[in-house]
């Protein structure tokens, strides 16, 4: 054996790692959480480095642009409000996706649910009921019901007809977007006005403001309540356990006597209700207060990123949403105040998704030299 005479440097470290691993305790919930958080943070750092490079290439004043990106969202009460509002909405779409993903249904229908929810809320708000105190709660309920139906349709189509949920939900998204377009142009706007937006909703149909002069409104409360409700439903009810078992192994669920199809359809319906509620949060919230064509602009799909990074865990969703919303707001402000376009943030998002979804491992030299001690202490 020739190599034994010239031991390479990592060898002692490897042996030390192995011996310490010998008395290793089984992974606790917190050590797993720690590992996942570490992974997400490393992904974020790598993505930020990439952003840095891009900004240095495209900007004439790169330092100013970066400072704006990193600090602007916290610079004023108003921008903090923008951030919080974005967090609430990202949380909702992230939750809706997490729910269907946990049941291993790749339903991408939040966008459509959002539009039909918004349309339903608009009809309530612009009706005579909208002028009364009932305008707010009825608008919200109508939005949730519309979203639920819109989530139920692809679910039942899959259960009864075997329709692929990816295709059907994407198609339903188009229908909802164009329906909104049509209704706004044809019936919701006064003829001849030329506007692509409805009149402002009456005050009675708008979400009450929580912090004056910001966009922070009732939607934030809804987001928090939804997180807790979804968490409770998934981890404390038999429906949630069934849903997760179906997601883990549908064949096992059938064998155990769980009606996998029922669970699947109900998961998609409940996620639809969340999507509908998000629609109401848009149009009845302080940000809009009216229905506009294409008001959503692809926002719903950000939920896929949130759900993937949060590993479909409802309690992790708002945390991921906070980071991501901060980046989004920073990029928007950078767009306005410097010469770097907001699209830079898509690069960040893409890098994070690729890194997290591929479950990358940290390179061993990094783990050994940088994280080694900390990881040892955590055990």
């Amino acid at each position, binding site marked *: *054996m020739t190599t034994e005479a010239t031991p390479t440097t990592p060898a002692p470290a*490897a042996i030390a790692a192995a011996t310490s691993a010998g008395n*290793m305790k089984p*992974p606790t*919930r917190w050590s797993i959480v720690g590992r996942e958080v570490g992974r997400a943070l490393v992904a974020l750092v790598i993505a930020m480095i990439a952003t840095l490079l891009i900004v240095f290439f495209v900007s004439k004043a790169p330092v100013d642009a970066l400072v704006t990106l990193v600090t602007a969202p916290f610079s004023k009460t108003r921008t903090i409000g923008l951030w919080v509002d974005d967090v609430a909405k990202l949380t909702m779409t992230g939750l809706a996706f997490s729910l269907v993903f946990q049941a291993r249904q790749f339903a991408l229908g939040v966008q459509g649910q959002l539009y039909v929810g918004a349309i339903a809320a608009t009809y309530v708000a612009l009706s005579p009921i909208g002028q009364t105190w009932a305008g707010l709660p009825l608008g919200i309920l109508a939005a949730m019901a519309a979203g639920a139906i819109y989530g139920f349709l692809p679910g039942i189509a899959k259960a009864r007809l075997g329709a692929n949920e990816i295709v059907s939900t994407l198609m339903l998204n188009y229908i909802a977007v164009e329906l909104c377009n049509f209704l706004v142009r044809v019936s919701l706007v006064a003829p001849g006005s030329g506007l692509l937006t409805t009149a402002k909703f009456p005050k009675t149909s708008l979400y009450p403001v929580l912090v004056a002069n910001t966009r922070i409104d009732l939607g934030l409360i809804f987001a928090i309540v939804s997180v807790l409700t979804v968490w409770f439903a998934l981890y404390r009810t038999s429906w949630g356990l069934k849903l997760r078992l179906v997601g883990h192994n549908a064949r096992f669920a059938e064998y155990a*006597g769980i009606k996998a199809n029922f669970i699947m359809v109900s998961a998609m319906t409940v996620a639809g209700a969340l999507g509908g509620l998000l629609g109401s949060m848009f149009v009845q919230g302080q940000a809009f207060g009216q229905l506009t064509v294409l008001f959503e602009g692809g926002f719903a799909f950000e939920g896929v990123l949130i759900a993937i990074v949060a590993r479909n865990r409802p309690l992790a969703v708002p945390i991921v949403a906070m980071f991501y919303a901060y980046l989004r707001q920073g990029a928007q402000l950078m767009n306005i105040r410097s010469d770097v376009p907001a699209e830079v943030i898509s690069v960040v998002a893409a890098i994070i998704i690729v890194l997290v979804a591929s479950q990358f491992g940290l390179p061993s030299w990094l783990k050994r030299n940088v994280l080694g001690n900390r990881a040892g202490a955590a055990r």
Partner: protein
Amino acid sequence: MAFIEARGIGRVYPGGVVANDRVDLSVEKGEVHAVVGENGAGKSTLMKILFGIERPDAGTLTLDGKEMHFAGPRDAIDAGIGMVFQHFSLVPSFTVYENVALGSEPNKGIKFDREAAIARVRDLSEKYKLNVDPMPPVRTLPVGQQQRVEILKALYRNARVLILDEPTAVLAPQEVSELFVAIRSLIEQGCTVIFIAHKLPEVLEISNTITVMRQGRTVGTVKAKDVTEHQLATMMVGREVALRVDRAATTATTEVCAVNNLRLLNARGGDVCKDLSLTVKAGEILGLVGVEGNGQAEVMEAIAGLRHVHDGQIVVANQNIVPLSVLDRRSIGIASIPEDRIAEGLATGATVAENIVATRLKDRRYVRNGLLDLRAIKANAAKLIERFSVRVNGPGVPVGTLSGGNMQKVVVARELSEQPKLLLVSQPTRGVDLGATQFIWRTIAAARDAGAAVLLSSADLSELLALSDRLLVFYRGRIVAAFHNREGLSPETLGTYMLGLSEQSPEDMRAGL
């Protein structure tokens, strides 16, 4: 220095499971070296390290005097190591030679040189007495032949060392002897074979040297000729074992389950079985014998409610259960241990407690008003872990991190935590170690003694002979023979019926039914 030398191999899985701990293995050139041990003993991990799928956390690996650091299986293949897994990776619609050449096709210009591939495969098959025709599509071959196609794949890539991971688990007795002929001829031609196995008589028959592993460590290496089956078993388990179940004579009279004129179809609409009838009585174990794919598994699935019944009746406790849902069937006392625990019997990503409660989500002890009683679920799981001695660090651990034997114990614990009326058992100890096998056998026998009617299907004839009171042999969806399990009934006798070489006369059959 031996041909293959692994020294101080350590491997800890991310879940914290210590799979290998200072494992040593030295294999001489040109021998059949068996590695035996209970499931969870770390055999598979060691083999995956030899084949480059896993990387060791500690230790060295040398091949022919050179230290090896495999970054992946590709490196191991380049170094002349081949591995045949329990689950084959073949393309069913491709022919034998296409499967063998896939990925390393000989070329003529830019075209696949089919003639060269066929000739090469034929040569290899003859040289190593593998007896495989290169031309037919793989899906038409029996399991034993498919396995030899896998061996050909390794030889085609110039493997000098062949690792066979539990090769006999899926084979009928006759096929096992054919495999052994092939292994002997591989050795004659200078190959080295590493053979992973559970069944000790086979290990003693085929191997020169045996390394025994237990709980992630090597217990010792012995020459096959110096050791008895009993000594080996003791080394493996670390205590005295008797692979036998004491069965009281059956006094079965009450019929629990009757299958009448059952007809089942496969996915393509062909008959799996037709006009099939059988009965099981309380307190007896009925063994369903047959090479896999002859209908036994499908009949069990039909009774469990997982397969559509095209025609016929299944009567359990005086009630036709065909229209009932899985849950209803479970509530009248049908329990089932499925053939494939990972694909069907467990949700590996969920915790032990969640897996155990999964079949009882209507039970008021665990679920009230749709809410889970987490404390009761956890306590119940802890109790069953204790009672069925599952080796696990607690009810909150994901099932997927357990060894095969312990996973199976979780399934058994769930299904037998309450005494069933009818118990369906498929392959209860496939890929399960000796200690757990013994435990599972006793548990099944205890369920029978307590009055359960048991339907048992297994690829392992010794298991069927050890447990069953009566045996039915399936061949192409029909029952071709029926026996009372008495002394003198040999695996060879069953084998001739299993392979369709003979069929009982109606009178003999009636005596057995």
